[in-house]
Each structure stands twice: as structure tokens, then as C-alpha cells.
């Protein structure tokens, strides 16, 4: 079975007068219908650019310079505005971070839902209105029959985000790109929105690319996780594996720096320093200046993203887990460049 969304070797560059800078490089992933892929990483890692690129929403001076995006096996021409207009809304929905600015303040929420459905589905306005009420009910708005005529300002942040989710899903897209959908909300609302997303993905078979810096949320709902650092994938795989036993020192550092209830109240583990910007990336592995375990190859060669071999007896077995880190290269790393990374658990 082919995946619903396949992104291959995506590269995004920033055009500047003094030449271009690579913001995202060699990022590949696939999402199947009904599954949730989480993209994690610090701000500036390029998470949102990947989302914008799939939606064809990259704005000058950033542009996609290499790589392909396939939706249900068909190549998407993400660089053509005309082609993407037909795709956005109907086949790919989008949920953005800030529900305060994602809605048009001058239109009632019903009008916005009706407009979207009328544009993408072959239904009358009256029918669209009925469906709008159903959608508001589905995302958990009280008394949807009256609220459908309400304006965005009369809803709270959490309610607005629910409406944004309804908007993204109302034309039944196969894929939804959710870019930090819960960051602007507080913990309790956040938990509700996360559950709503998960339920909808399951019930409607929608694939979700969830861009989120909060690993706690990804742990709860994502099926697969991809950890991004300075524009490159450093680790990816099933959520339980990546977050449960991270192999890359960066993923490990990120997980350890989350405060947990019940931990001792001493120092939190922290990753020293900050992520380099696109123009100041060091040679070799971009993480090496901050890495506690760096050794001699790290500042010279960039580790390639390769599958991890978990079982030493059967090193070519499918693990579905990839990594880019010299720590797992084994002793004879320069002899055999094509060999897989070795898992530390094996």
C-alpha cells in the first residue's frame, strides 16, 4: 500500500543578495491515511516551512528548490499557484497556530464554513449551511444552530481553534497540515483540542501532519515522529520508539529538558547553547557544537539519515526507524559508508 502523502528529498532555500541559504535539506517522510505524523524541533528548525511547502504556501524569498511531494501517488506541483488552489481546502486542509488571526473577523463562522464547502464540494448553499451546523456540533460547539451565525470575536481561543479545525476538515480533505495547533492555547484547552484532532483523524481516515514543538503532545497522539534539527531530519520512527528510547543526542536532550511532575526538584537537564541559524551552520553534524557526546568525525562529515539496524543478527531487517548520528556508526565507519546505523538498544 502506498502512503497517502510522500515527501521526498525536500529542500527549501532562502534567496539572499549574497547567495542562497539552505533552510531545509533532504527531508523525506510518508504518512498513511488515518495516521498522524508529528514533526518536532525547536523554533527555527524549519518545521513550519515544511508544512508551508506541502501546501504550496512558501513565500518569496523562500522557495522549494528540490524534492517532490506526492499526494495519493500523484505528484503535486507545489510551485504552481493555480494547481495548488484546487488542492488546498479540498484535498489538503490547514490548521494554523493562531486561531485569533486564522479566521476572518468580518464574516460569521457559518459564512466561512459555507464558503469553503461551496467552493470545494458540489453542494448548494442551503446544504452547506446544514453541514456547517453539523461540523460545529462535531467539533464540540454548544448550540451550533445559533452559534453558526456568531462572529469569531464572540468565541474564546479554544472555541476558535475548534472552528478552524472544522474549516480545515469541512471539505473532507485526505490530509491536514496542523502547524502548532495548540501552542496559543492553555493546557486544559490544549488537551481537548488534541483529543479532538485524534478522534477526527480516526473517524474520517484523515492523515495529519502535526507540526509541534511540544513532545508531550506528540507522545499522546502521533503515530510517527520526525525530529528536525537545523533543517535536517536527525531521527524518525514510531513515536513510542523515538520518544521512549531516543538514539540521537538531540532527541534525548529535548526529552530530558521537559519538566515532569514527580521528578526531583533539582536541575533540569538542558542542552547548552542555541540552534545555529541557516547562515551559521557548522560543518559536519549541525548539532555537534552542542552535543555532549561529540567525537572526532562529528565536525567533519555530515551523518546521512539511514535506517537503524536493531537486531545484530539480522542487520537488514526493516525497523522503520532512521537516524543521522556518528555515535551509532560502529567501529569501521569509514570502510562501509552504506551500512546502517546500529541501535544502542540492540
Amino acid at each position, binding site marked *: 500500500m502506498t502512503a497517502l502523502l510522500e515527501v521526498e528529498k525536500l529542500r527549501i532555500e532562502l534567496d539572499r543578495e549574497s547567495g542562497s541559504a539552505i533552510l531545509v535539506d533532504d527531508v523525506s517522510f510518508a504518512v498513511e491515511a488515518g495516521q498522524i505524523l508529528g514533526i518536532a524541533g525547536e523554533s527555527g528548525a524549519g518545521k513550519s516551512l515544511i508544512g508551508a511547502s506541502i501546501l504550496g504556501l512558501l513565500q518569496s524569498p523562500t522557495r522549494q528548490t528540490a524534492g517532490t511531494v506526492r499526494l495519493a501517488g500523484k505528484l503535486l506541483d507545489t510551485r504552481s499557484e493555480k494547481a495548488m488552489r484546487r488542492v488546498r481546502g479540498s484535498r489538503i486542509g490547514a490548521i494554523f497556530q493562531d486561531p485569533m488571526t486564522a479566521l476572518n473577523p468580518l464574516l460569521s463562522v457559518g459564512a466561512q464554513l459555507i464558503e469553503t464547502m461551496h467552493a470545494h464540494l458540489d453542494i448548494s448553499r442551503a446544504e452547506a449551511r446544514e453541514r456547517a451546523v453539523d461540523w460545529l456540533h462535531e467539533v464540540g460547539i454548544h448550540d451550533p444552530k445559533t452559534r453558526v451565525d456568531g462572529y469569531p470575536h464572540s468565541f474564546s481561543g479554544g472555541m476558535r481553534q475548534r472552528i478552524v479545525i472544522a474549516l480545515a476538515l469541512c471539505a473532507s480533505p485526505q490530509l491536514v497540515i496542523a502547524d502548532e495547533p495548540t501552542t496559543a492555547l492553555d493546557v486544559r484547552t490544549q488537551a481537548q483540542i488534541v*483529543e479532538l484532532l485524534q478522534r477526527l483523524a480516526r473517524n474520517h481516515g484523515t492523515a495529519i501532519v502535526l507540526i509541534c514543538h511540544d513532545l508531550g503532545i506528540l507522545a499522546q497522539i502521533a503515530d510517527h515522529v520526525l525530529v528536525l534539527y537545523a533543517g535536517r531530519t536527525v531521527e524518525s520512527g514510531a513515536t513510542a520508539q523515538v520518544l521512549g528510547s531516543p538514539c540521537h543526542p538531540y532527541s534525548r536532550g529535548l526529552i530530558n529538558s521537559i519538566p515532569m511532575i514527580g521528578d526531583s526538584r533539582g536541575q533540569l537537564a538542558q542542552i547548552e547553547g542555541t540552534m545555529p541559524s541557516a547562515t551559521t551552520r557548522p560543518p559536519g553534524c549541525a548539532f555537534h557544537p552542542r552535543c555532549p557526546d561529540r567525537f572526532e568525525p562529528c565536525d567533519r562529515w555530515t551523518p546521512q539519515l539511514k535506517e537503524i539496524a536493531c537486531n545484530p543478527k539480522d542487520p537488514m531487517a526493516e525497523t522503520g526507524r532512521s537516524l543521522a548520528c556518528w555515535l551509532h556508526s560502529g567501529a569501521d565507519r569509514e570502510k562501509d559508508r552504506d551500512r546502517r546505523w546500529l541501535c544502542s538498544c540492540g
Partner: protein
Amino acid sequence: MRMSFETPLVEVVNLTKTYSGSRTWFGRRPTGWVRSGTVLPSGKREEIHSPIVHAVEAVSFRIERGRTLALVGESGCGKTTVARLVAGILKPTRGTVHVAGIDVGRPGKHGASALARSRQMVFQDPYSSLNPRWRVRSIVAEPIKALAQRPNTQDIDREVDCLLEQVGLRAVDGKRYPHEFSGGQRQRIAIARALAGRPSFLICDEPTSALDVSVQAQILNLLKELQARHGLTMLFISHDLAVVSHMADEIGVLCDGRLCELGATDTILTQPRHAYTRTLLKSVPDLSRRRRSSDNSAKFAVQTGDRGRNPIERSDDC
């Protein structure tokens, strides 16, 4: 029990802040009106309606020297209002705040400057709390200039260098402007500025909620380290119970402007008494726990939704 001569550094008694929203937008009338009679010039008595918003109601707590009290709650529960009342940015409707024995509401002439020295604040958003047109050096030097007895340029320079290094920046960074720094570094600048007046009491209003987790860990560690070094007393405002569990000795849980639970951190986290505290605890994302979307919780979400959030129409039962 502490000895009686050691008074708590911060004492808040029965703090209340109400807003009367007598102005209405486009004549729209919010719900929950309180009637009040006014006598018009003509001698006629007219019934006008004015809603009263209880932002904070009867909040009392005390913080011992060198300890940290954290206030947690959802957005709109009044956390920031309490912080601003304690910081003296807002005036309380009723109740008193004493910091180091000085009444924040009526500090008097000498009290006001002593208060400014002893109490400083770190704000939530490091992007808007620093003046973009000032160099970092001037930003950090300003409180010293304003509060020191006899400021002398050389002393100020030395002090600023020292402060920048304490918060993990370099002295040369002082020549740069805020926009040249990342969010975490800006929060470090804000902390340096807060420490410049050598306060004994620091109010932190969600100091890490605009930051990434890795940066959050750095800032929280820095705050703890500075607290140990300077013996700071802290009022720490946050919506994140996990963060609070790391920072605070005591936790106060705010719900609709009222303190619904107050106690030692371990007690609150392990034996929460109030239902609201339990709800908050449940909604903390946990790496080790994969939430099942069994639809009970989804229904719960729909039913409770955002109710009880509007302070005008809130009920009495929470």
C-alpha cells in the same frame, strides 16, 4: 512553625480586583448586570446597569523569605492580575499587599523607592518587554541609574557586565540591540534587568511560556541558580504544572479569580483536594502516557467546554 520575628517577605491579604464595565461596545449589554440607582440632574432616579467583573477575589497568601510560591490556572483565571497587583502595576479594589513590611497600596514617599528596589518583575513575552530602540547595556543599566543612591558611570558599567555574565550572556552583548537576540536570550536580558535593582523579591509572570522546551530548561535552571545565589523570594506565575513542580515550594491554584487550593508542592501534586486541581493535573501532557481517545474524555471536553471562563457570568460553586 517559623519564629514570629521572621515575618514573611510577602503577605497578601484578601486581595480583590473588580472592574466595572459600565462602558459598552455598540450598546451591547453583557450578561450578569448589577443594578445601581443614579440620580439624574432632573431629580429623577434612573436605573442604569453596570456589570461587575471579578478578576481576582479574596486571594490571600504569604511567601517566606527565599521561597517560591507558584500560582497556576488557566488563561483568564486571574494569575496575571494577581502578579500585577503584587507588582503594584494595578491598584487593588480591596485587600492589601505587603512586601518587606511596606504596604504596596500606600507605600509613602520612602516606601515607594524601597519597594521599587526590593521588588522586580519578569514578563511573559521577551519580544515586547524590551525597548527595541535601546542597546542591551542601557536596558540593564536603567534600573541601576534609577534606583542606586549615587550612580557612578564606572560602577554602573561594571555592574552591567557582571549582570550580563550572571545570566549567561557576554559583556560585549551589551552593545547589541534586543532584535539581535533569540527569545531565550531576550528573556535572559529581561532577567538581568530585573536583577539590576538588586531585588529581594522577583515576580515572574509566565517567564518561559513563549520559549522552546530546551530553552525553557535553560531559563528555569538560571532562575533557580540566581535564586540560590541571591536568596531571592519568588512569585512564579505559570499555566504549566510540570514547570511549577520544578520551581515552587508552594503552589496556589487559581480558578475564576479565587484561590481554590494552596499548599506545599508535593501535597498539591500527589494529593490534590480540589476537583479543579485534578483536572489541571490530568491535562498535563506526559511523554510516558499515551492518551486513549476513548470518547468519554471527548464528551467531557464538549460538556465542560469553555464554561465558567467568563468572569461576568461565573457561578458561585467553584
